């Protein structure tokens, strides 16, 4: 049996070298608190947390209270004066700025779109789609990818060969094209978009976990468990996967950002969630025709995507630094 690592030992490898179950837990607790401490000290990851918190609250608010941000208005196809007591016009610029359609007012702080809809309200609703797809697709892809990677790495041999070829095939089709093909085949709906994006996420985690497992597999405690007749399933789910948790957590956080970018790209190409449901990529696609008359319309949705993705990247980088003190970022 490997010597039990002291809870005050260096953060780096304590979880991997932990011998018996309760020692694992003990070092895991101290590790978690150390990671949290580290995160708190890092101002960049604090900013990331704030951004993610804000985006999540906004997305939740739109589901809890439909009247808070007038969803009907956000999702109407055409501008109807009765939908808009403020009496807006199309393509208004933000507050205080003037263009050929008029001067921006506080009734529409960020201006209006080509159908006279409030850009801010539509941005707020776009948050929901982005966060939903980003989080759920990453969750599904991570779960499947982790299991496939663990099984592949643990058993090796032909199981590994078959699963690796499968994963390489998924990798070989450019992910945007894969999702577009999936959505053309099964429908341009939110659920299908989530499935499509999760499929492109699987290989990322399979590779990550497989390489982790290859190093963990040879550890003495896994050998010991095998010798003691512990079932494979138990070894994979209770020992191997938990020990690879840290890099998976980091990768998941970063992957949410990547997936939000994929969803926006899909909507931009017209393969995402269909209008009138508002999404950031679709707003950008619409704005292309009005770039000269109202460039602001092209600026806001991009800023929303940028801010959200930066949030997840900052947190992901912060987590990596906190978990692996050797990294130099």
């Amino acid at each position, binding site marked *: 049996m490997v010597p039990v690592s002291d809870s005050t030992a260096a953060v780096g490898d304590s979880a991997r070298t932990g011998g018996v179950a309760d020692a694992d837990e003990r070092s895991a607790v101290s590790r978690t608190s150390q990671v949290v401490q580290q995160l708190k000290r890092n101002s960049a990851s604090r900013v990331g947390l704030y951004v993610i918190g804000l985006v999540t609250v906004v997305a939740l608010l739109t589901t809890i209270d439909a009247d808070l941000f007038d969803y009907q208005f956000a999702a109407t196809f055409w501008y109807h004066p009765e939908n808009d007591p403020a009496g807006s016009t199309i393509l208004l610029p933000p507050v205080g700025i003037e263009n050929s359609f008029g001067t921006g007012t506080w009734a529409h702080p960020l201006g209006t779109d080509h159908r006279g809809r409030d850009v801010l309200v539509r941005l707020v609703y776009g948050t929901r789609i982005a966060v939903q797809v980003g989080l759920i697709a990453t969750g599904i892809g991570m779960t499947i990818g982790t299991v496939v990677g663990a099984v592949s*790495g643990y058993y*090796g041999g032909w199981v*590994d060969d078959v699963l690796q*070829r*499968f994963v*390489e*095939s998924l*990798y*070989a*089709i*450019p*992910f*945007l*094209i894969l999702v*577009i*093909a*999936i959505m*053309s*085949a*099964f429908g341009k709906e939110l659920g299908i978009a989530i499935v499509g994006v999760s499929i492109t996420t699987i290989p990322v985690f399979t590779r990550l976990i497989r390489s982790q497992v*290859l190093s963990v597999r040879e550890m003495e405690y896994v050998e010991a468990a095998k010798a003691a007749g512990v079932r494979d399933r138990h070894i994979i789910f209770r020992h191997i996967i938990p020990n690879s948790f840290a890099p998976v957590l980091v990768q998941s956080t970063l992957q949410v*950002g990547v997936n939000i*970018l994929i969803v*926006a*790209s899909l909507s*931009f*190409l017209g*393969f995402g969630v269909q209008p009138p449901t508002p999404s950031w*990529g679709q707003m*950008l696609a619409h*704005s*292309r025709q009005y*770039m*000269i008359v109202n*460039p602001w319309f*092209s*600026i806001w*949705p*991009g800023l929303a*995507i*940028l801010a959200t*993705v*930066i949030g997840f*990247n*900052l947190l992901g*980088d912060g987590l990596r630094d906190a978990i692996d003190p*050797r*990294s*130099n*970022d």
Partner: protein
Amino acid sequence: MTTTGYIGRRLLQIVPVLLFVVTVTFVLINSIPGDPVRILVGPAADAAAIEAARAKYGLDQPLYVRYVRYLAAVATGDFGTSIHYGGVAVTEKIFERLPVTLLLLASSFTLAIGSAIPLGIFAAKNRNNGYDHLARVTSLIGVSTPSFWVGLLLIIVFAYYGDLLPPSGLIMPWADPASVDGATSRLDVLVTAASHLILPSITLGTLQMAAITRIERSSMLEVLNKDYVQLARAYGVSERTILRRQAFKNAQLPVLTVIGIQMTTALGGAVLTETVFNINGMGNLIITAVRAQDYQLIMGTTIFFAIVFVLGVLVVDVLYAVIDPRISYGGGAGE
């Protein structure tokens, strides 16, 4: 194992991957609702004309027959014909569009690698001072920005407001001067081609540049902290020599991996960039194919992308082994 043996083994591994890609694509494409033949012949055609067209493209056969036929055809390099483009061979269409996309990819990768590697090294050398922070913030923004948005902003600033560069299209540098607007000599063509290439290359290259800068910086930092570098410093070897002679080469392995990964993203990114700038390349071709439900064309382009990608990965892996002799070509689990 020798290099040749390794390459041979890897080429063999490509076969099942491509077989899988063909199968997945075939199943997906045939699940698309709608009838391409009806789109082709138009609403006015009678039943006989529809059946004739269906038979002409082999679409009257059961699915498994079409699958086996398709596999056999692909194996001989025949990707079928495009319904949307009036029966032109898919391969012909691909090779017509391919140079455009390759030019775009080459130019954006040159831009990305050429700026990212010096920037990353510079940031690592000046760790934690102003330059480093600037490089880190810039690359963070770069990996977090949707590329098509960068394209839209560039068009607004440089094409519409600045009126400096064209907002759309791409001219091949080897095009005939007579076919290019306002060009009388080769030089004119080259200038026009370059001016069309700048904005799309920045659009496509931003993400690559940011990602490579990040990995170059952290990889250099890691190497610069290694014992042998510390020892060289202790012996009084200048920082410049250390960077050039010792650190640089050893820091490039992770960088190469990231460049390899960026290739997939770049192929997807080309679809977006070509859409933003109305460039008639492979990306535009695949989007047109999907919109027109041109089965053969969708499958052909997808499989072609997969072949390019798989071969690209192989090249990166071989380069990897060339740069780092410690990496064996063996088939062990640690591969």
